[in-house]
Structures are given as structure tokens and as C-alpha cells.
């Protein structure tokens, strides 16, 4: 089964609103990453949060991590139509090795209406 499960599967909002996506995982992690994928394109790394961090910001992105609940959330503030994309959480395998072997969640499809 997938390490990461995200919800909602799809989110539709108006420009200017905030978008929140959630990710749950099963095993211990060293870090959790969020990626963005525009339709039909490759994935782009957005932000990484380490297991000893609780919150991290990057521009309009805010990521939180709760290791006790094995969950993370990605908040996009003041959304724009250009934020329309799929968003995935991903985790490397536990143990501190083979970091590139990421396990991805199923993703949240975000649609921002102008």
C-alpha cells in the first residue's frame, strides 16, 4: 500500500482563497517532501520538512508536520489560477539510506478558478 495518502483527492477553490492539502504516512520518516505537477508535465520539488521540524514556510507555502500523527499538511495562501496543478507528498524510506527511492501519495488535484 502507499506510504502516503492524501486528502482531499480534489479541491476546487476561487482565486485568493487558501488551499489546504493533507498527507498521512505509515512508517517513520527522516523528511517529507511536497511536489507539484502541472498537467502532463514532470514533478517539481516545492518544499522539504525534516522530521525534527514542525513547520516550514516558503513564499506562499506553509508545511506542517506532526510525527505523532504521521501526517503533514500543505497550505497555499492567496491562491492564484497558476497554482492549478496536482500536489504530491513523498517520503524516503526509513533508515537514512536510499533517499531517492521516494514513496509518493496519490496526490491532490487543485483547481483554482479565476
Amino acid at each position, binding site marked *: 500500500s502507499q506510504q*502516503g495518502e492524501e486528502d482531499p483527492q480534489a479541491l476546487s477553490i476561487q482565486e485568493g482563497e487558501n488551499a489546504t492539502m493533507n498527507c498521512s504516512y505509515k512508517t517513520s520518516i527522516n*523528511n517529507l517532501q511536497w511536489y507539484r505537477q502541472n498537467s*502532463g*508535465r*514532470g514533478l517539481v520539488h516545492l518544499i*522539504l520538512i525534516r522530521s525534527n521540524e514542525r513547520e516550514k514556510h516558503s513564499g506562499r507555502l506553509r508545511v506542517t508536520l506532526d510525527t505523532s500523527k504521521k501526517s503533514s499538511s500543505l497550505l497555499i495562501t492567496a491562491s492564484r489560477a497558476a497554482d492549478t496543478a496536482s500536489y504530491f507528498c513523498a517520503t524516503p524510506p526509513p533508515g537514512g539510506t536510499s533517499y531517492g*527511492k521516494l514513496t509518493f501519495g496519490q496526490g491532490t488535484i487543485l483547481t483554482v478558478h479565476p
Partner: protein
Amino acid sequence: SQTIHQWPATLVQPVGSPLSLECTVEGTSNPNLYWYRQAAGRGLQLLFYSVGIGQISSEVPQNLSASRPQDRQFILSSKKLLLSDSGFYLCAWLGQVNTGELFFGEGSRLTVL
């Protein structure tokens, strides 16, 4: 700066035909390289990874194979395609070794008819 190229971008192949998808990386040496498959626009599944020339690890049993004939070249192949091989194939390289941040190519969309 580092860049990653994939080709072809789109491919339509009949069942039973061979496949070759190519990935090359520029601006870095001895990268860890990965092939992922994405079905129906959803989550990615790791197929193969390589830590060096000639070194291939397979993550899932399947009809596909991978090769790394050169340091910055990673090839995904099949001798006979199945309908179930259809999908979006993404090549990636490990940009940050100690965290696992991946840099992806633009993908190759394969449709098997």
C-alpha cells in the same frame, strides 16, 4: 546548471512491439537515476534506480528493463509491450543525496494499443 532530458515525449505503440525510452542528465556526474511510472495522473511508482554505470536495481517485477550504458544516460526498455505498460514514465535524478530531493524530466507518455 543541471538539466534532465527525456525522449520521446509521446509514444503510441502496438502490443508486442519493443520500447526504448531515453533519459540523459547534464551538468552533473555520477548521478543516482530513477525511473518512475505514473498511472492515470495519480501517484508515482518506482520502477528502477541506478547508482552507477551498469548498476540497475528493480523495484517491482514487470515486463520492463532498464540499462545505464553511460554515466548520464538511463534507458527504459521492453522487448514486447503489454497493454498494462501504458502510462506516464518519469526519469529523475537525485539532486540532494542526504535528503532525497528528486529532479524530474518532463516525462514520456506511452500508449499501448
